[in-house]
């Protein structure tokens, strides 16, 4: 009785009883994850470039000069006037790449947002309400998965014409499947937890339970899927543009640039290599970010 345990506060054995908050842990893991940091920084840099495009770009990306077509980049014997050379209409390649970042990021982001909204609503509803709702959603997911994405997207874009809005809309309406699948599974998992029953037993309304008990606990998965689907949308847009049914010229899209450069691929391979490489780096960075986020948020989800 002489020494009550709680007064023994300097004892080293007692140190770690109150650990860091989940937020602190998350931050620590976040900054400790190399892939995540690399991916996030690259994405951040590209984002800044995209936002500041008018300031950074050395030339007007639309200004053509038919007398200076397909000038090679500086490292292949070009001039500093056009660091990455010019395209088949004599437009500055670097400036077009910089403006292209806007297109890719915009498409990735908005398409992921649209599909995320659709998929999350479906997935959460299926997971939470189960029964018939679940059956319908599962069926819809099956139908969606059975439709060949590239083919359907191409067909729709061909029909409606390839404006930026149409491409974003088509991708947004096609890529919700993974959201629905993941959100359904996460909701199902969280729904079985006893704190949900506790909230129900307290009399909390369904919207309240969905918003304050379920959503915060599936948000991490949602964020991971958003990043991965963003990458997916960006790649798909590039593919559509490559096949000639994506966004329309003169809008500089990287996929379109590859497609345009493709014609001279055998003679001027850099026309294809440069935009493809930038596209690769962006998608790689987003994927690294998504993977990192998954790593960082997963253990928390388990405990």
């Amino acid at each position, binding site marked *: 009785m002489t020494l009550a345990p709680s007064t023994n506060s300097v004892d080293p054995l007692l140190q770690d009883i109150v650990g860091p908050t989940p937020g602190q842990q998350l931050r620590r893991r976040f900054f400790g994850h190399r892939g995540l940091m690399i991916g996030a920084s690259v994405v951040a840099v590209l984002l800044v470039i995209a936002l500041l495009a008018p300031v950074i770009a050395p030339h007007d990306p639309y200004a053509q000069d*038919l007398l200076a077509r397909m000038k090679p980049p500086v490292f292949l014997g070009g001039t500093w006037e056009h660091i990455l050379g010019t395209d088949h209409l004599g437009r500055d390649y670097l400036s077009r790449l910089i403006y292209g970042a806007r297109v890719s990021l915009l498409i990735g982001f908005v398409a992921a947002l649209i599909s995320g909204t659709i998929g999350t609503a479906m997935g959460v509803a299926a997971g939470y309400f189960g029964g018939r709702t679940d059956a319908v959603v599962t069926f819809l997911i099956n139908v969606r998965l059975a439709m060949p994405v590239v083919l359907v997207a191409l067909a729709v874009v061909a*029909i409606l014409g390839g404006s930026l809005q149409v491409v974003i809309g088509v991708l947004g309406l096609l890529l919700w499947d993974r959201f629905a699948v993941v959100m359904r599974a996460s909701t199902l998992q969280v729904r079985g937890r006893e704190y949900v029953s506790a909230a129900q037993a307290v009399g909390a309304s369904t919207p309240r339970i969905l918003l304050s008990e379920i959503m915060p606990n599936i948000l991490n998965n949602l964020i991971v899927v958003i990043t991965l689907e963003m990458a997916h949308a960006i790649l798909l847009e590039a593919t559509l543009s490559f096949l000639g049914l994506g966004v329309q010229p003169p809008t500089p899209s990287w996929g379109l640039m590859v497609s345009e450069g493709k014609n*001279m691929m055998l003679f001027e391979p850099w026309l294809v290599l440069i935009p493809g490489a930038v596209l690769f780096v962006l998608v790689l960075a987003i994927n690294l970010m998504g993977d990192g986020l998954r790593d960082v948020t997963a253990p928390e989800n388990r405990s």
Partner: protein
Amino acid sequence: DKSDGTLSVAFTKELENVDSYFNSSREGVVLQRAVWDGLVYRDPVTSEYKGNLATAWEWIDDVTLEFKLREGVTFHNGEAFNADDVVFTVNFVADAENGVKTQRNVSWMKSAEKIDDYTVRINLKAPFPAAIEFLSGPVSMYPNEYYAEVGPKGMGLNPVGTGPYKVAEVIPGQRFVLEKNAGYHDSPKGQPSIERVDIRTIPDINTQIAELFNGTLDLIWQTPADQAEKLAQMDQFTVANESTMRIGYLTLDAAGRTGEDNPFTNLKVRQAVAHAINREALVSALLKGKSQVISTACFPSQFGCDQAVKSYDYDPEKAKALLAEAGYEDGFTTEFYAYRNRDYAEAISSYLNAVGIKTDFKMLKYSALRELRTAKGTPVSFQTWGSYSINDTSAITSQFFKLGALDDARDPELRDWLDVADSSTNPDTRKEFYSKALNKIADNAYWVPMFSYNTNYVYGNDISYTPTPDEVLRFTTMTWN
């Protein structure tokens, strides 16, 4: 290769049906000229008409043509050629019910009748001066018994004609193998010398070039200018360039179909557009080769295509001034449509942007654009027309300025003049009225004609070939070196 006597050729587009009445593509024309013959033949160099399956012909009246047929000609399947074949073919294709795809090529004919085994008459619906031209082009003669049996589908899979080449194999859309017709009649087309022609569809130009490098292709054509230029720098290939009848032009919504207040209803705006575009630069930087800047709404070699019309030189300042006069000091924004040659269209739209006409660029599939133009019209669109290689102004100007669905000018006076020119049998009257119409089109800048197209032919040095300006690949005139 020369070693195995087979010439490997690439087509870029998939050909829908080898039956020449049921496709509308250039590739189809190439095969048509190789596999079938027409009654008449026009020398592509001299433009002189010669007898082919017919030996002589004469106009009985304005609407009746009589032909004497060549004797002793047989089809590839052994069927003999005679008046029955001509009568059957003409009656079949002239009947709209049978769904010939290119109605314009055949709809001027009413029927055919047999006079005797080697004499036939073709009856026209109305006087049609370009009849011989058409008969020397798209109208080829089919074997009546065989065609009655298999129809267009069977003809497409297993074509039979009288031409210099027999079809040995067809994989629809992918591959056609031709073999020399050893018993080819004494035709003005000449006798074939190359044994076999192996045609594959390779849509991608890079792949075509790569195969050319690898020696698995001997000849490619319609090669884009930039690539052709590079290939010409290499020793092992010959690059030949020939002009074609296709022209590129802008059609402007002068009639206000997209809205009464459309800027293009204003003549000054249309003229500003014409002044804004540096057509010389387009030709020298993008099209290259034998392309030329044109100012009339037809291809210069076409009958009646008067070149002495108003021409608009590149003058952006003047364009801006005209726009200001028209009340568009700050320019305006308009939709700009195109369906092919995205790079040309982009370059054009960029010129328009430079003088203040901001374009909202829309690239559509041909059918979608055509539907849009038919239904509502478009403010500006970049169009091209190849006239089916028919060397007559009626094949282009009359197609678009007679108040049809694609007529953006909708000028009744033009229609009347063109009607006269199309149906008159007097060449001078025709010339006069075409000239009047073409001058009015130019003065009013209904169209902004831009340039004519050209075609590149790239082939190994072991082949000799001289391409013709009608953009038809003629295997008969090719030889191994």
